């Protein structure tokens, strides 16, 4: 009887080994990629704010696109697929690190930017980064000490062939794509894509494939979303979860709270200052601003790099109210003086269920901003909301109808020639609508228009009705 059990166990092991080896042989996949390991649940999973984020985790794409033999879909970082989303990002990061650190065994080939059409027609995942990353900064953030490939200047997007495991770095400004190939590059992205396609995701199309003159290659919209709906959200400022004294205590950790001076203006905004170096302002709208009075642009003694600036900014936010879930660096502006960096503005954005948030104050659509001057935090602004789901559903309009509505506005009412209008980007967002607290957040389409006329910029249209809620003026 024992022998029979032993035989059964051996047979079971043989079957398991055959599955693992077969998958490795045919799918060229690392063993850990075959099994999607469930990570330990995050203790802060239900909290909006989290801290101690690693700076590399702030490199996130604006759009994560899965290209599958001519069909495309957009993967949003939603709760039910967050493990898959994170795994794809992690595998891509690991592949970038492996490819750029390797001293041998990697072949690199340079293509024209048009090659992206071929990549999109094949089997690739495409991570469109929110801005053009400086190559050195990206490699520094990823802790690649001595990147081998020095001919790359910027990285706008990263693609991975999930069948070939080839890596593609897109430098749009220099009109080129670098293809990095090696038998050592492995990932489990293919199995992640399989899981996504088994769930029948929405089909998307690149409008530039149809008309590249009127639509940039970022314009990526779903087709047939007539049955799709999104929940209306409600939000209230994060500052309502604290007393003003609590917020002041976070910023003035090394001060005795009784030594702080506070002033409340007629609009209900509260200002705290230590009377020497720094102050904060807490607005009723939820905007929290920090200023270091002592840091001046003139004092340029301290040298710092972009990586230093990212580290300083990230640590500062981590220590002062933390990052909302799904935060990422959305832009970096830098100013140099005599070829030395002296000012840097780092902006962060966050998303709710994979959808970015647009604040009522459209100028704060990057809700966290940190200004670094001479290696110190000069200014820090944030307007973060605690978000709740409501029971109201919004049925979404076909995005092609949304484009039509906008074109009618521009062409018929503003008399702009259709040939002059070009759509630079288009994406779904949640827009904070109204000033009441709690504030409603409704699904919208943000359409970025470019052209040789004054009405260029962001247009925000209600995703349900198509009504234009905001336009540049």
């Amino acid at each position, binding site marked *: 009887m024992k022998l029979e059990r032993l*035989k*059964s166990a051996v*047979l079971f092991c*043989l*079957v398991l080994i*055959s*599955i693992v080896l*077969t*998958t490795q*042989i*045919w*799918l060229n996949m690392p063993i850990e990629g075959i099994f999607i390991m469930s990570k330990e649940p995050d203790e802060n999973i239900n909290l909006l704010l989290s801290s101690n984020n690693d700076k590399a985790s702030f490199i996130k794409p604006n759009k994560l696109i899965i290209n*599958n*033999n*001519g*069909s*495309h879909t957009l993967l949003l970082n939603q709760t039910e697929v967050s493990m898959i989303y994170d795994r794809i990002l992690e595998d891509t990061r690991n592949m970038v690190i492996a490819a750029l650190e390797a001293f041998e065994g990697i072949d690199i080939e340079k293509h024209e930017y048009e090659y992206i059409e071929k990549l999109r*027609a*094949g*089997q690739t995942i495409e991570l469109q980064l929110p801005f053009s990353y400086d190559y050195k900064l990206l490699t520094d953030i990823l802790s690649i000490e001595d990147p081998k490939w020095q001919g790359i200047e910027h990285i706008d997007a990263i693609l991975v062939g999930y*069948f070939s495991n080839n890596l593609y770095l897109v430098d749009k400004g220099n009109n080129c794509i670098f293809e990095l190939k090696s038998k050592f590059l492995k990932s489990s992205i293919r199995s992640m894509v399989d899981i996504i*396609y088994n769930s*029948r995701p*929405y*089909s*998307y*199309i690149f*409008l530039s*494939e*149809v*008309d590249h003159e*009127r639509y940039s290659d970022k314009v990526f*919209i779903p*087709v*047939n979303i007539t049955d799709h709906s999104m929940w209306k959200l409600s939000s209230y400022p994060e500052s309502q979860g604290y007393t003003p004294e609590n917020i002041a205590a976070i910023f003035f950790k090394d001060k005795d709270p009784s030594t702080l001076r506070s002033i409340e203006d007629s609009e209900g905004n509260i200002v705290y200052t230590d009377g020497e170096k720094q102050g904060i302002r807490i607005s009723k709208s939820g905007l929290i601003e920090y200023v270091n009075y002592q840091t001046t642009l003139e004092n340029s003694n301290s040298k710092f790099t972009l990586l230093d600036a990212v580290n300083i900014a990230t640590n500062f936010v981590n220590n002062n109210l933390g990052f909302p879930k799904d935060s990422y660096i959305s832009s970096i502006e830098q100013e140099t003086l005599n070829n030395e960096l002296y000012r840097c503005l780092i902006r962060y954005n966050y998303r709710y269920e994979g959808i970015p948030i647009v604040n009522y104050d459209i100028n704060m659509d990057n809700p966290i901003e940190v200004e670094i001057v001479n290696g110190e935090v000069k200014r820090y602004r944030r307007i973060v909301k605690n978000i709740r789901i409501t029971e109201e559903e919004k049925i979404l309009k076909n995005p*092609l*109808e949304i*484009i*039509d509505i906008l*074109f*009618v506005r521009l*062409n018929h009412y503003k008399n702009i020639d*259709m040939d002059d209008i070009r759509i630079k980007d288009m994406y779904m967002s949640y827009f904070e609508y109204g000033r009441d607290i709690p504030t409603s957040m409704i699904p919208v389409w943000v359409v970025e228009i470019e052209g040789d006329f004054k009405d260029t910029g962001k247009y925000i249209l209600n995703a349900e009705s198509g009504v234009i809620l905001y336009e540049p003026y």
Partner: protein
Amino acid sequence: MLIPIRSKYMKILFIISLVMIILMSSAISVHARRLDSSIPVFDFIDGVAEVEQPIIYNNRELSIKGKALEGTVITINTYWYQVNKVKTIILKDKLNQNDISDTGEWILQHTEECQVGLSGIFGASVPIKPGRNKVVVESDTGESYEIELEYIDNRKITEKIFSDMFDRVDLIFE
């Protein structure tokens, strides 16, 4: 009739078969995934680029996109070729194309209509079935384009192999 697995030789045979099936299905999977295809843009202004047909395709959903003048009404019809004689998916590939045409008929699967707006673009996502499919896109001006594609669903192939081999096996281990 169910065949209970009671003898140890049958058990071994079953395990070997299982391993072989896994190997075969992954081979099919690899083969199916290596097929390249490109669905053309249905351009009613500048014409449609010629592509080799049937296009080999491996997704359940097919995205149709195209360009036409504002106001044009576009109708998209998809058809699936139903083979009269029941054949397995694998065997079908080996038959002469003419033989297949003689023994089946095109069945309308899906119809969709849309009017092109100022964007000048139309798009739709239509479901397709394993086997031969035909997409006909026509405008109200009388122009019409047609493509034929073959959808190879590796999952269905694997399921078919498994069901053919193990449906009548009663998995009783003693």
